């Protein structure tokens, strides 16, 4: 294998120039450089579609993609042929020129805006190193080339993709915010290229002469592969951690220097800029068919130069859609005051599809739920800690939250934290001066402070305090109390607990920052370890340690020398403040007599000198500065200890933040993070640095993440893994001793229980590595890291090699609350005849519970489970389920009561089989019988596959809604993609057609705006056909009287302006503003939505009825004047004008009547009014009557449903107790 890889690498070197690029510093003299630079694109960007010269041909070409445009150009051309010309050729091209000119002007205008923004961007300035002047000079962005050295300051935007060479940060990291790129507002860490010869505080460009080889430009934001070759032929691997992406913002770092590798259009940001997609709406597709029909009709009628095909139709449709979008975006009901966002319509041409949705695919997390994770409970070493108080506080919070108009209040509790530390202190007798705490109240009120979540400040700060479980608290604190002589069993448990908390604190990618310095990462704070407690702990740990935890202080290589030094300098400290912020460097409690009274503005100045030799704090100035700042800040604030700042955790996923917060509640506080180490405080230890050896980041394939650290106490290399429960349980070794086996069994039991409660579960495990074992792994891993090709696969493999034979520590349960009005919305959507499917990555039980909570599942529903391991089993299961459905329906026939429905729950693996060709059919059959389908454990790919399958095979209109990156593919596949701008960045929004901020807005968006848009547009299009057919037929009838010569009785100008001027505005106004039924009624009666689903407004039959109607009207319009004038001395035009004007009048009158009736409908409305008409009538009634009839309507409908239901039944699944784990595969048993 290795040989193979090596040979691969050898092969790669050969075709070096072909598929990779070489970047040399542009300020060195080298012949190659100029040549290379010419081949790479410059940093100037042009996002405009057209240039001055290419506008006309390119725009024309694009416009001619429309069938109708081609047709009219053809007709116009035909008029220049003398034999067939009907009009003066000049006149005949006016309409098409007019229409195309409007489109062209619109395009030009859009392009102009793009050009302006391009110019703005290109003219931004940045500092580029100049060879001649030997210093950094200001340059425009457009002038930056590949190989340039660029220096950026904090908060500057990165002009091109650069490899980070230097950062003012002592750790060689810099933080960037990628909000411009993907909308994620959390900071991402980037790292200076490793093993760079000059790591010092100053970067001298002259000394840099390495060459960079990297892959050719591509659009993968998260991938960058390459290596840097130093003059000594030493190669260092480069990866995405080293790359600063264009249009991101440098945060938190004073200056960074990087070398440009991709510029301009070759940057990843630009490569990703594909522009909006063009979707064609269902209505428009049908429209095209009907245009073709008109051509056929035209051929049949066989005369030239008619205007049967509505030339202005396309233009009008576009204008109408713009108008509709304007009104959707201005809807106050879809406005979220908290986030200050309304609805965003990103696709301009599918508004009417909103009115025809038949299937809705929803993501769960963040879409139905808040994606606001709150730690709820956990299980460690087989013992469940129910966190009752926490539950109570959560409930209270929820109540409060619900009481409030906006639900984004986050809770933070200071008092509770204090009381908590008080409790813990009292347990930790050894090192506490109780004086510190007497001043503080011991209240348990959690809701002291409700802090408004400032919009957009931090996307994923979960600031809800966790009330610790007393039992767990006691056990954890036992660790630092040396008095306890623990039993062996208990000792093992305690070490598990400690490991569990270490894992919670360390095994994540959370960045710590503080509120007063937004977007600035907390500098690595002063390390003060209370000596005694640490020593005691170590002793304790030693005592507790199982034989395989050998511990000696000598081995404790991780402790930096400064740390030990400090330990002595500081002497014994009586306090530990898990939550104390580094900004007010650990309120000086050296003297126990002045506890909270110690002003925080006289901070640890004596401490700093002692730190000067510390390994962390090479850059003393920085630290000092930061400190001064912070002191100043705290000065300006209150001296009160309550004002001590809290740490803000910015995590990529909300779960991580929740877990870190939870650990913090137990006194295990994450204080800071650098690439090499993590600063953590444990109860009784104070800040500890844990050397971070590796981070194996989370990947959806592995469904877990790991960190490799050196254990702070034992000094061993330990792997902490956190991930989805099923994955971790598999990886956890079947332990040889009964203890761990018991843990596993117990934990599994607890996990099931959590899932039943609808909690999100995560398992935490660890593994201790022998030194040799670690070294062996390290070697392979480093190879994987530095390799350029197959890097991802190698890293995956490497991670899998590490993450096995784990020891299970415990599991956590996290609550994710439902968003407001989700059940109502889902109910309304289902009533509207939309099938709602939930596609989630969560586990089955959680998914089912959420489904119950949001009323997707009703107590009476019959749940069909499909969990299969093989294709055959899957097939058999499907048959079984089908049988079951028929059985259930039969049974339902007999019993009278209640509604019955089946709901299919299918897991990811089974879904894979179901999506295979052979089983697709039976899967779809099955789903058709079910009211809803819940797919759990599904991957993003599966989500999109499911959507595509349903869309293509069932030929239905689909809508996909989601908020995260994992929903992007699904959103793109669906006919209508809706993105929720929520916690997880903007990726879903970027790829969506409509973006809303809450799930509940979907209700109005679909039921009201969708219905309106569809009804309006459909009627408008019908009207367009009507008016053209009607008008053209007048000319047609005339042909019988002019020898079929194609002469018209009206002036050609009138003919041409008929569509463009005389009859264009009314339908547009109609298409934008008409309301068949008011919005309130549509919301109250979701039933009405079904008319859109069945395309009732635009059926083929309606089209033909319209055409026939038009024929009839034109007959009347023509022959009445004809008989009136027959045989008279009437001239051609005198004959034409009354016909023309009467037709115009009738056409406009028809429009007037069309708000809502075509003549044909009068009878329908009288004899058997459709639901829509009845709703219209209802609106006439007084308020009281209105509600009466509304009630009656609903009753009627319910009665209808009952009577039409041929398969009612009752089922024994009791929903009050969502007790579903047992109905797994044996769902059949439930029936009996």
């Amino acid at each position, binding site marked *: 294998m290795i040989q193979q890889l090596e040979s691969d690498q050898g092969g790669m070197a050969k075709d070096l120039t072909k598929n990779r690029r070489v970047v040399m510093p542009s300020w060195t003299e080298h012949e190659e450089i100029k040549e290379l630079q010419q081949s790479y694109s410059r940093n100037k960007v042009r*996002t405009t579609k057209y240039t001055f010269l290419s506008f006309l041909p390119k725009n024309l070409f694009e416009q001619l993609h429309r069938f109708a445009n081609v047709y009219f150009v053809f007709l116009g051309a035909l008029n220049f042929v003398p034999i067939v010309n009907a009009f003066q050729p000049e006149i005949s091209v006016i309409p098409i020129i007019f229409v195309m000119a409007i489109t062209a002007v619109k395009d030009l205008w859009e392009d102009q805006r793009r050009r302006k*923004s391009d110019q703005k961007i290109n003219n931004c300035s940045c500092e580029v190193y100049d060879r001649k002047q030997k210093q950094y000079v200001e340059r425009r962005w457009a002038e930056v080339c590949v190989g340039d050295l660029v220096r950026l300051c904090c908060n500057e935007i990165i002009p091109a993709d650069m490899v980070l060479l230097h950062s003012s940060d002592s750790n060689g990291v810099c933080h960037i915010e990628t909000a411009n790129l993907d909308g994620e*507002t959390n900071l991402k860490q980037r790292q200076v290229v490793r093993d760079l010869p000059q790591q010092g505080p100053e970067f001298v460009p002259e000394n840099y002469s390495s060459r960079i080889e990297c892959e050719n430009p591509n659009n993968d934001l998260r991938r960058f592969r390459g290596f840097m070759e130093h003059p000594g032929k030493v190669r260092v691997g480069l990866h995405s951690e080293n790359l600063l992406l264009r249009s991101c913002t440098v945060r938190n770092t004073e200056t960074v220097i990087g070398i440009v590798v991709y510029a301009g259009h070759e940057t990843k940001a630009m490569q990703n800029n594909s522009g909006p997609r063009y979707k064609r709406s269902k209505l428009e597709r049908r429209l095209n068919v009907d245009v073709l029909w008109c051509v056929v009709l035209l051929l049949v009628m066989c005369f030239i130069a008619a205007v049967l095909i509505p030339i202005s139709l396309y233009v009008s449709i576009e204008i109408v859609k713009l108008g509709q979008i304007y009104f959707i975006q201005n809807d106050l009901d879809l406005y979220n005051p908290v*986030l200050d*966002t309304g609805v965003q319509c990103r696709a301009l041409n599918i508004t009417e599809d909103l009115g025809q949705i038949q299937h809705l695919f929803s993501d769960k997390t963040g879409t139905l739920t808040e994606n606001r994770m709150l730690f709820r409970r956990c299980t460690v070493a087989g013992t469940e800690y129910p966190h009752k108080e926490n539950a109570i506080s959560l409930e209270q919070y929820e109540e409060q939250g619900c009481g409030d108009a906006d639900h984004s209040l986050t809770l933070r509790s200071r008092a509770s934290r204090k009381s908590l530390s008080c409790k813990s202190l009292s347990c930790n007798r050894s090192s506490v001066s109780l004086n510190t705490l007497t001043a503080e109240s011991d209240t348990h009120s959690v809701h002291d402070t409700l802090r408004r979540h400032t919009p957009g400040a931090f996307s994923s700060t979960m600031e809800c305090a966790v009330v610790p479980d007393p039992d767990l608290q006691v056990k954890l604190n036992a660790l630092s109390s040396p008095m306890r002589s623990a039993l062996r069993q208990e000792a093992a448990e305690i070490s598990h607990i400690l490991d569990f908390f270490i894992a919670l604190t360390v095994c994540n990618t959370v960045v710590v920052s503080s509120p007063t310095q937004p977007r600035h990462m907390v500098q690595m704070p002063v390390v003060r370890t209370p000596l005694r407690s640490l020593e005691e702990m170590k002793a304790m740990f030693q005592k507790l340690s199982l034989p395989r935890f050998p511990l000696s202080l000598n081995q404790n290589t991780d402790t930096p020398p400064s740390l030990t030094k400090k330990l002595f300098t500081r002497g014994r400290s009586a306090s530990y403040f898990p939550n104390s912020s580094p900004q007010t460097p650990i309120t000086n409690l050296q003297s126990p007599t002045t506890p909270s009274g110690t002003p925080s503005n006289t901070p640890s100045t004596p401490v700093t000198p002692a730190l000067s030799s510390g390994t962390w704090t090479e850059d003393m100035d920085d630290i000092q500065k930061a400190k001064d700042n912070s002191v100043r800040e705290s000065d300006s604030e209150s001296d009160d200890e309550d004002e001590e700042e809290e740490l803000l955790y910015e995590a990529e996923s909300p779960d991580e933040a929740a877990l870190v917060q939870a650990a913090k509640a137990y006194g295990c506080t994450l204080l800071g993070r650098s690439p090499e180490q993590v600063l953590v405080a444990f109860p009784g230890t104070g800040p500890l640095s844990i050397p971070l050896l590796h981070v194996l980041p989370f990947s959806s394939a592995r469904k877990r993440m790991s960190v490799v650290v050196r254990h702070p106490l034992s000094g061993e290399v330990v792997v902490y893994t956190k991930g989805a429960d099923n994955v971790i349980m598999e990886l956890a070794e079947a332990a040889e001793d009964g203890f761990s086996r018991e843990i596993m069994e117990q934990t599994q039991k607890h996990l099931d229980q959590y899932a039943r409660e609808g909690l999100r579960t995560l398992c935490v495990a660890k593994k201790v590595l022998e030194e040799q074992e670690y070294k062996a792994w390290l070697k392979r891993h480093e190879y994987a890291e530095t390799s350029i090709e197959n890097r991802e696969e190698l890293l995956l493999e490497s991670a899998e090699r590490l993450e096995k034979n784990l020891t299970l520590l415990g599991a956590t349960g996290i609550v994710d609350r439902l968003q407001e009005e989700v059940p109502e919305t889902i109910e309304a959507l289902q009533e509207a005849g939309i099938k709602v499917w939930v596609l989630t990555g969560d586990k089955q039980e959680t998914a089912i519970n959420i489904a119950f909570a949001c009323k997707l599942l009703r107590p009476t529903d019959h749940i069909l489970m499909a969990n299969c391991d093989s294709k055959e089993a899957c097939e058999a299961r499907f048959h079984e389920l089908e049988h079951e459905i028929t059985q259930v329906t039969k049974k339902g026939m007999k019993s009278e009561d209640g509604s019955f429905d089946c709901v299919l729950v299918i897991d990811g693996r089974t879904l894979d089989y179901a999506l295979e060709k052979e089983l697709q059919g039976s899967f779809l059959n099955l789903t058709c019988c079910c009211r809803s389908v819940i797919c759990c454990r599904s991957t993003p790919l599966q989500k999109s596959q499911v959507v595509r399958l349903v869309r293509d095979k069932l030929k239905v209109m689909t809508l996909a809604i989601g908020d995260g990156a994992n929903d992007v593919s699904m959103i793109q596949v669906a006919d209508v993609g809706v993105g929720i701008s929520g916690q997880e960045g903007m990726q879903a929004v970027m790829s969506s057609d409509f973006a809303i901020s809450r799930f509940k807005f979907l209700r109005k968006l679909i039921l009201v705006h969708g219905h309106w848009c569809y009804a309006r547009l459909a009627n408008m299009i019908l009207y367009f056909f009507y008016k053209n057919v009607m008008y053209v037929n007048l000319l047609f009838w005339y042909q019988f009287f002019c020898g079929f*010569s194609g*002469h018209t009785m009206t002036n050609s100008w009138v003919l041409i302006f008929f569509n463009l001027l005389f009859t264009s505005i009314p339908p547009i106004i109609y298409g934008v503003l008409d309301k068949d039924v008011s919005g309130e009624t549509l919301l109250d009666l979701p039933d009405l939505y079904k008319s859109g689903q069945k395309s009732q407004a635009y059926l083929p039959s309606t089209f033909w009825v319209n055409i026939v109607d038009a024929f009839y009207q034109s007959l009347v319009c023509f022959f009445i004047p004809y008989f009136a004038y027959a045989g008279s001395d*009437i001239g051609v035009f005198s004959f034409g004008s009354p016909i023309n004007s009467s037709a115009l009048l009738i056409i406009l009158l028809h429009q007037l009547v069309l708000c809502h009736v075509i003549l044909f409908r*009068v009878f329908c409305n009288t004899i058997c009014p459709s639901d829509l008409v009845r709703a*219209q009538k209802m609106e006439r009634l007084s308020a009281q009557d209105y509600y009466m009839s509304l009630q009656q309507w609903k009753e009627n409908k319910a009665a209808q449903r009952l009577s039409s239901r041929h398969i009612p039944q009752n089922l024994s699944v009791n929903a009050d107790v969502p007790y579903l784990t047992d109905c797994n595969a044996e769902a059949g048993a439930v029936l009996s």
Partner: protein
Amino acid sequence: MMASSYNAKDEDGHHPGSVGSGGPGAVKSKKPDNTAFKQQRLPAWQPILTAGTVLPAFFMIGLIFIPIGIGLLVTSNNIKEFEIDYTGVDMFSPCFNCSQNYSWNSTSACTCSVPFTLDQPFESNVFMYYGLSNFYQNHRRYVKSRDDSQLNGDKSSLLNPSKECEPYRTSDKKPIAPCGAIANSLFNDTLELFYIQPNGSRIAIDMVKTGIAWWTDKHVKFRNPGGNNNNLSHVFRETSKPVNWRKPVYELDPSDPDNNGFINEDFIVWMRTAALPTFRKLYRIIQKKKDNMTPTLPPGNYSLEVIYSILEKSA
């Protein structure tokens, strides 16, 4: 990506959530205005059409139109019409010979007279029309076959008529004036009306040949080239007459310079193409007597003298 995201922000007035830069005060809220228009609450009237409302409305409208219709019918019935067919298809028709023997080559005109009797007097002005049936004056290529600028007196068009006139554009290498098929097929029968007194003597009835065309046609659309130059033959000297014509355009009415050339009213009337294949055109007006005592055409015997020239059988 970048540029487009900038765009999006500009377009929607969207600000990236006030992250980092820009205080909350600086960011304009995106809250939509609560106006009747933007929230689609404009007052509106929405009729629901059912048979109950539509049928009475129809009847009402119908009732309004009934008196109008009655009025129109009565007026229409007061108009007396008398029609004479002189095509001469019928063997016993006086014009039978003319219709049979007429040929383009013959230089002498064929004349026939049709006697008729009026039973009732014709009061007021009497309008005399000639009518053609199945003459497709509205055929597309026929209609186009004219040059309006030539007819408007444009000198250059006079000598270089529009291509639309083909194949009646030039003859003998001279431009035709007036060119085109319409002009070429000018109705050139001459009709005269005589009152036959009981004693057998014939009195020619005075007929006015002007005032039969539209005022705009006569004064705006049609103009002789050369303005008020009375010497029309000189103006038209470089043109040739339409092939079917007997005489050039400047001899249409030599007696009246205001009715000669392009502004000859018979010609103008002909040039205004009829909408339908069976049509009639105003030929003459018999003005009522000044004394107002005797009717314009008293009852009695009359004779219509036709100088037969048009090839109506085939038309």
